[in-house]
């Protein structure tokens, strides 16, 4: 059993499940009441469903509370008060923070936060960073273009909150960031898996610096599923000679989950601050036990300016059967976020999750980190093309690599691919959310 110093708040992080659920139920009712009383949108939504705060006594009652989808937020934000619309629960003058979603799936959604909400964001990050072993002696380098996207902003404030020294990587280019890490002997790093791998590649191949010989000993990855994909995690850990930890959060939700330093093969849900429900995609039933994947419906239990109540995140997750050796009672989602409901698609009648392809590509020595998947119509049939890069010095092994890649893809995805080998460095590189899966059938 780990000692007390391993927890940011041992009181909440070790609450027995029954007490944790009592806390969640009380907090759900509090945020529901708050939204009902202070937001025209929420009151109207709940009145149409015939639900008032008095109707919520149990988790079963919560399941009848209408869900909110991102598309609804886009409609709400066409209304007053500008620019947030009538889901806003506080006077505009209490809003101190503006952020917006990345717009990957359409028109960005604006996110207002009060200073209290912003403290809350940092608090959520404090939980995750402490669990990943960040301590006041750490010097954390954040290679992120501080802008309108929330991304690692809250990580910056969370690291400050726990007492770390934070170095904002800001508008520096990748080479300058690497030199700054070297100059300052930074000990920790935050970024998307794609970018952290790209940094290692730049250091090695363009600067003659081995990132494994720098002083980084832990890396927090977010924004993409990569750090939860074993082969990608291993590549990053090997490249940097550092522990890599997964984290998932979202602009409209908050920093809701994290892998702890015990690396249990998934992420803890911060169940003191969030209520996560997993909904069966086919039946709409709530999945309460381990072993079955579904769509995450999430409530941020303490966010006040623009509440997040039963938000349909579209993230695909499943509960893990095991508890964690770290002693936290917060449940674990197995393998982290394994995909998105709108990414998992049927090809040739088989369900395909892009993360399964990444797991295969990055498990094969001799292949570069980048890849691209294109699904398209070929007459009446469907065709999947997978573009990969051979690492420099691997050309003579091309046949054996292709054979292994084909076999593993067949084994892991039950599908056949046309494989194209590109020259190293010719596939697109991404700094934020990578777009490696292209479904041309929809065009």
């Amino acid at each position, binding site marked *: *059993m780990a000692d*007390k110093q391993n927890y940011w*708040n*041992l*009181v*909440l992080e*070790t*609450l027995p499940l029954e*007490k944790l659920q*009592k*806390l969640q139920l*009380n*907090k759900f009712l509090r945020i529901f009441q708050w939204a009902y009383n202070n937001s025209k949108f929420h009151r109207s939504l709940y009145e149409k469903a015939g639900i008032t705060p008095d109707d919520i006594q149990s988790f079963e009652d919560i399941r009848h509370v209408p869900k909110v989808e991102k598309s609804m937020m886009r409609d709400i934000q066409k209304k007053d008060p500008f620019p947030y619309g009538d889901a806003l629960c506080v006077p505009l003058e209490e809003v101190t923070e503006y952020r917006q979603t990345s717009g990957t799936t359409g028109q960005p959604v604006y996110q207002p936060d*009060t*200073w*209290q909400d*912003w*403290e*809350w964001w940092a*608090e959520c990050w404090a939980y995750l960073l402490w669990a990943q072993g960040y301590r006041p002696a750490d010097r954390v380098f954040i290679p992120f273009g501080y802008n309108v996207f929330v991304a690692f902003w809250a990580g910056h404030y969370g690291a400050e909150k726990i007492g770390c020294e934070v170095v904002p990587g800001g508008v520096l280019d990748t080479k300058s960031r690497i030199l700054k890490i070297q100059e300052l002997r930074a000990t920790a790093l935050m970024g998307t898996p794609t970018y952290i791998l790209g940094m290692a590649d730049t250091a090695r191949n363009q600067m003659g610096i081995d990132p494994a010989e720098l002083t980084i000993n832990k890396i927090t990855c977010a924004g993409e599923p990569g750090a939860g994909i074993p082969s990608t995690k291993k590549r990053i850990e090997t490249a940097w000679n550092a522990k890599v930890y997964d984290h998932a959060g979202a602009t409209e939700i908050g920093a809701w989950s994290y892998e702890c330093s015990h690396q249990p093969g998934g992420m803890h849900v911060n169940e*003191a*601050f969030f209520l996560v429900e997993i909904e069966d995609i086919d039946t709409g039933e709530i999945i309460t036990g381990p072993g079955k994947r579904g769509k995450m419906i999430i409530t941020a239990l*303490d966010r006040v300016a623009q509440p997040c109540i039963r938000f349909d995140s579209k993230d695909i997750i499943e509960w893990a059967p095991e508890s964690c050796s770290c*002693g936290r009672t917060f449940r674990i989602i197995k393998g982290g976020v394994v995909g998105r409901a709108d990414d998992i698609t049927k090809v040739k009648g088989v369900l395909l999750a892009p993360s399964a392809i990444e797991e295969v590509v990055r498990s094969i020595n001799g292949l570069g980190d980048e890849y691209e998947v294109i699904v398209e119509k070929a007459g009446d049939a469907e065709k999947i093309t997978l573009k990969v890069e051979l690492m420099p010095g691997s050309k003579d092994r091309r046949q054996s690599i292709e054979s292994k890649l084909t076999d593993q893809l067949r084994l892991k995805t039950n599908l056949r691919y046309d494989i194209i080998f590109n020259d190293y460095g010719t596939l697109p590189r991404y700094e934020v959310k990578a777009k490696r899966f292209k479904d041309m059938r929809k065009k």
Partner: protein
Amino acid sequence: MMTTENELKKIDDKIKLLRNTAEELKSLAENIPAITRNTTRLLASVKMMELNISDCIDFDI
């Protein structure tokens, strides 16, 4: 592993005292933004302590 209920209650009492003091300060200095705005930020920190400890007491967890 758990901190005792008695210890938690003592912590909660101090958090509540902090909230009352900050709110009183805010109303005493309502014409001095340097105090009211700093108090608003202080109260946000107090809220985080309430989420961490006081909720357990208030909801009888």
